[in-house]
């Protein structure tokens, strides 16, 4: 995808390679490596949604973790707003994290059970000083709760007092607290009931329009990807086998693996499908 406007994309990943060391059990010495991602390149522009699909173990989460700096790449480069961040120290990475947030699959495991919703959201402001003055934390947190469709009166409740869909909203509110430019959603709606999943997808859509967010959206669910994303990368065993605009890719898949993947998706009303 050539950058016609001339300014750099929000996120550019070039020739990314990530290998997890295989350690021997005696001395924890590395005795080999498990190549989770090899030679992956893609761009995410401001306000755009890029989908990452693939079967389990294909390396989707690894890419997400590498972009956000939780895993070190073995090779390749990650640029954020034109600056190469792959060699950043964790202190410098902290500055980047302001603009780049993550929402996880499991809304149960990713929220500290001992913090109230207000504290969970305000945590980001405690870490990144000077964005919101501390006397505004409660008011701002309530505003964010309202923004993601939660009752702000529940600000002093704990995560376990909410349903799965509500918790995912808390996760999203927390990610929004710093007004990021990019949110990485790793299977963010996969654990939710279809009816609730639709609510969260609508919310993500609204937030994108309102704040001009870009999403790197990871899912194994092709129908969700098709609904939400502008462009899609299909990942198989750590390699991007195909990337294209969503419509083009779904209507005219080129790669054999993509074709197999698309053909395997169950159709709700097979009798309407001209193909079968």
């Amino acid at each position, binding site marked *: 995808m050539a950058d016609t406007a001339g300014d750099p994309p929000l996120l550019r990943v070039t020739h990314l390679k990530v290998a997890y060391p295989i350690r021997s059990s005696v001395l924890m010495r590395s005795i080999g490596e498990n190549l989770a991602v090899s030679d992956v390149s893609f761009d995410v522009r401001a306000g755009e949604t890029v989908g990452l699909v693939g*079967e*389990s173990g294909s390396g989707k989460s690894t890419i997400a973790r590498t972009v956000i700096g939780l895993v070190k790449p073995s090779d390749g480069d990650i640029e954020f707003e034109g600056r190469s961040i792959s060699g950043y120290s964790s202190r410098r990475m902290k500055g980047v994290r302001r603009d780049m947030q993550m929402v996880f699959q499991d809304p149960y495991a990713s929220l500290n059970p001992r913090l109230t919703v207000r504290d969970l959201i305000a945590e980001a402001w405690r870490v990144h000083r000077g964005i919101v003055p501390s006397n505004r934390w409660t008011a701002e947190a309530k505003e964010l709760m309202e923004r993601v469709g939660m009752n702000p009166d529940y600000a002093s409740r704990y995560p376990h007092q909410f*349903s*799965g*869909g*509500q918790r995912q909203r808390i996760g999203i509110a927390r990610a929004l607290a710093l007004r990021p430019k990019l949110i990485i959603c790793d299977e963010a709606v996969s654990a939710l*009931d*279809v*009816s*609730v*999943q*639709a*609510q969260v*997808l*609508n919310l993500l*859509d609204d937030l994108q329009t309102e704040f001009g967010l870009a999403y790197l959206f990871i899912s*194994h669910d*092709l*129908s*969700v990807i*098709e*609904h*939400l994303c502008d462009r899609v990368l299909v990942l198989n065993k750590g390699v991007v086998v195909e990337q294209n605009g*969503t*419509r083009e890719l*779904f209507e005219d898949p080129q790669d054999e693996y993509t074709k*197999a*993947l698309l*053909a*395997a*998706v*169950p*159709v*709700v*009303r*097979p*009798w309407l499908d001209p193909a079968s």
Partner: protein
Amino acid sequence: MALLPKPAGSIAGGRIIYRGRDLAHEPVKQVRELCATEIAMIFQDPLSSLNPVFSIGYQVAEPFRRRQGMGKKEAWARALDLLKHVGIPNAEKRIRDYPHQFSGGQRQRIMIAMAIALGPRLLIADEPTTALDVTVQKQIMNLLADLQAETGMAMILISHDLGVVADVAERTAIMYAGRIVETGTIREVYDHPAHPYTRGLLDSIPSTSDIGKRLTPIVGSPPNLLALPAGCSFHPRCPFATDICRTVEPPLRQPVGWLPGHEAACHRSEEVLAHG
């Protein structure tokens, strides 16, 4: 199948009629005798459903040995045939392997081999593909369909995915908050949902026709089963709800003017159908 954990759960009422016998009122021991020979079951997570400390050959041969008193040699030979039949590659070599040495799809195949060993008349499949990738899901569903065509067994397919059910099943029962809210042939129910919940589910699924548009989710979240709303338990989320819905629990009934065999538990099915 009398598998309810004993102290925690028991049948509080109702009947389970299998070939004229009421299994709900028979002692556990008698019901278990029907297991595998008449009724068999496969489960969601094939890894935890297989005993990790026995080889798969032992586990598949077990029904023959313990239920039919077959000798070890003969039982293992039968197990080998079954494993080949469900598509375990290299079955002669792998029969001595342990469950963890197989992939998720292969484990589910092993479970299926075990379930069909004694030629049951009814197979209950509880979310058989939920833990699997889409391509593997397709293979497993095809295998189940083939086996059914071959043996003529009946199948109860339990799933949260309307698409998975659509391909294989003829009739469906939609459940909400512990009750069946709608039943009928798949086509009738999917094309003309008579219950607002079924309708909401179908509308929530992202599909090709609404790409880029907003999804129409069901508002609210699933109820707490310990504190179900009075009357119709769906009323807090139902766009069709009226006063009667808050007080009177609707029985399953055939909507006036629609095909027999299609029933819904809703006071206002006729209006719901008219809207579609």
